[in-house]
């Protein structure tokens, strides 16, 4: 086995890692809002991501909507899906909610597989990124003025982290408001929050809908990054990678999500550059094995994560 370090020194490698890390940061911000702040176990985040990405691609390809409108609509549709799924499942607690949401995500995946006229079935969809390519070219022309014109991935990197920055600012602001304090109260003691006259169910629903909107944006960016979406792009594994990012960064810390995501994806992408004498499916297995080991190791040895506080760990006992 040899290790080829030249790839690790190339800027485009790190820009690629940065894009994926940014996408998973946005994705996991939603999980942080649900799990870390509100105390609801959303195991269906990949399903909302699929709803967002497919909604954007279908609106552009089948209905010829302008890309920016399709992007905004995809987030709105995913939030609506969050409200529908949440309305059906949020009265359940803990593990039951986890099972209901993961089942809902699998249903989304089943629809994506079987409603082929709309979704392309297992072949998936492509060609929805024409408007983005034009924009990226425009951005690259501006970037070449500062000597970065040959980094073709840089526009997506910039857009991804800009969206993450906006979402982070929004959520950090919201946390300090009375609204954010009610979410924390629900996490600490749902019955007490209800006894204070708070409509616990409505707050949980809002929390899930915002998370679904963030998942949709992450899904849109993922779709632009991989240029072809098919049902397996949004498997349950994606949700659990999000949970690995979440616990690595620490429950309750929004900024920790970015730290966890950059750390995890640096390791995962670097692992694919270690030239093991292995076939592609086995390299993928090594990556997911790392995700599993991270989940176990963090939960066993440092359940509060890198930036979390131990007092934030009082998640439903």
């Amino acid at each position, binding site marked *: 086995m040899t290790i080829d370090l030249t790839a690790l020194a190339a800027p485009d490698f790190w820009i690629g890692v940065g894009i994926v890390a940014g996408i998973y940061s946005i994705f996991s911000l939603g999980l942080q809002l649900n799990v870390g702040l509100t105390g609801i176990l959303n195991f269906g985040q990949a399903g909302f991501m699929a709803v967002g990405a497919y909604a954007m691609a279908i609106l552009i390809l089948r209905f010829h909507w302008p890309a920016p409108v399709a992007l905004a609509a995809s987030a709105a549709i995913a939030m609506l899906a969050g409200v529908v799924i949440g309305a059906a499942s949020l009265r359940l607690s803990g593990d039951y909610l*986890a099972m209901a949401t993961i089942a*809902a995500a699998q249903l989304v995946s089943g629809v994506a597989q079987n409603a082929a006229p709309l979704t392309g079935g297992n072949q998936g969809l492509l060609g929805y990124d024409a408007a983005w390519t034009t924009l990226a070219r425009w951005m690259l022309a501006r970037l070449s003025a500062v000597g970065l014109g040959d980094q073709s991935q840089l526009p997506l990197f910039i857009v991804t982290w800009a969206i993450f920055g906006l979402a982070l600012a929004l959520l950090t602001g919201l946390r300090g408001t009375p609204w954010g304090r009610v979410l924390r109260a629900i996490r600490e003691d749902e019955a007490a929050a209800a006894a204070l006259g708070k409509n616990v169910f409505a707050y949980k629903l809002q929390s899930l809908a915002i998370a679904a909107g963030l998942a949709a944006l992450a899904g849109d960016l993922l779709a632009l990054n991989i240029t072809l979406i098919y049902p397996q792009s949004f498997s349950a594994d994606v949700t659990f990678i999000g949970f690995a990012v979440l616990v690595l960064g620490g429950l309750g810390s929004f900024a920790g999500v970015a730290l966890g995501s950059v750390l995890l994806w640096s390791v995962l992408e670097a692992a694919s550059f270690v030239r093991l004498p292995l076939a592609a499916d086995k390299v993928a297995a*090594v990556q*997911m*094995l790392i*995700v*599993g080991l991270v989940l176990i190791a963090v*939960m*066993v040895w440092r359940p509060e994560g890198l930036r979390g506080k131990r007092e934030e760990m009082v998640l*439903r006992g």
Partner: protein
Amino acid sequence: MLNAARSGTPPPADARAAATGAGRRWVAAACIAALAALLASRGAETAAQATINGLVTGTYFALGAVGLSLVFGVLRLVNFAHGDMLTFGAYVALFLNAGSGWPIVPATLGGVLATAALAAASELAIWRPMRARRAGGFQMLLITVGLAFVIRNCIQLAAGADPLQLRLDVTSAVALPGGLRIGTVELWVVVAGLGALLAVATLLRYGRLGKEMRALADNLSLAEVAGIDTRRVILATWLFAGALAGLAGVLSSAAAGILTPNFGFQLLLSLFAATILGGIGNAYGALAGGLLLGFAEEWSALFVDARWKLAVGFVILILTLLVRPNGLLGRPALK
């Protein structure tokens, strides 16, 4: 009943019994209604053939669900690694059968024992130390997810992602009266699976271990105070759940005729559905839920495209959680 619900105390025992009785009637009514609708619309022979197929699917659903339910009942742990324990058992049997040329019966036993050992090892290496540290439910749940990833990807690392097959004659079939057919392999799946389920049900009902497990499921600290060696019973629960998962894995991959590293995880949500349908933590409920779900999936294929078969399981899972979260046979007292 209303007052009890308002003040948050569990309903009295007679209400509980009444609810269980109502549940049983509900199952019976649903089964009869579904069957009647089938017979009326698709003809007796088609319906009977779908029912036979449902029995095959239901048998391995039930085997998988009973283990999942036992672990939940005793430890209050929703084990997301259970599906991958099925995969593990199937791969061990496949390795012994197709790789080392063992006949199918000893290879199956090898898979069962290996999976039981894996489950016991997880108890000794992870679950017992984590309980001693009083780890929270969220920690435990995510560890099961991590363990699922580790098992599945170790299998993929060792065996690759290409589909593999047990060395079985999948073409021969047995003719049943009335022009119905069942594959020889599937017949053995039903015989072995139902036999194992019957043995487990008897043991849980009359054996000392079964009584101790129920005592733990009811109240772990009380069972400990009463002098039950809880560590031994929990270890035995894992051995049992692992053995059943291993058998379910071998039988389901034999019936499906194909095995990939994702096989068990794809079954997991159906096992959740079966477990919840029967009332989570209730082993007999899981048995009934598994069989019922198997029938439901095969019957559904008579009405909608068979590609939606799996989705039927998810819909049943969600509907059961919404309408009757304690399951058809479950006790209302569970949180």
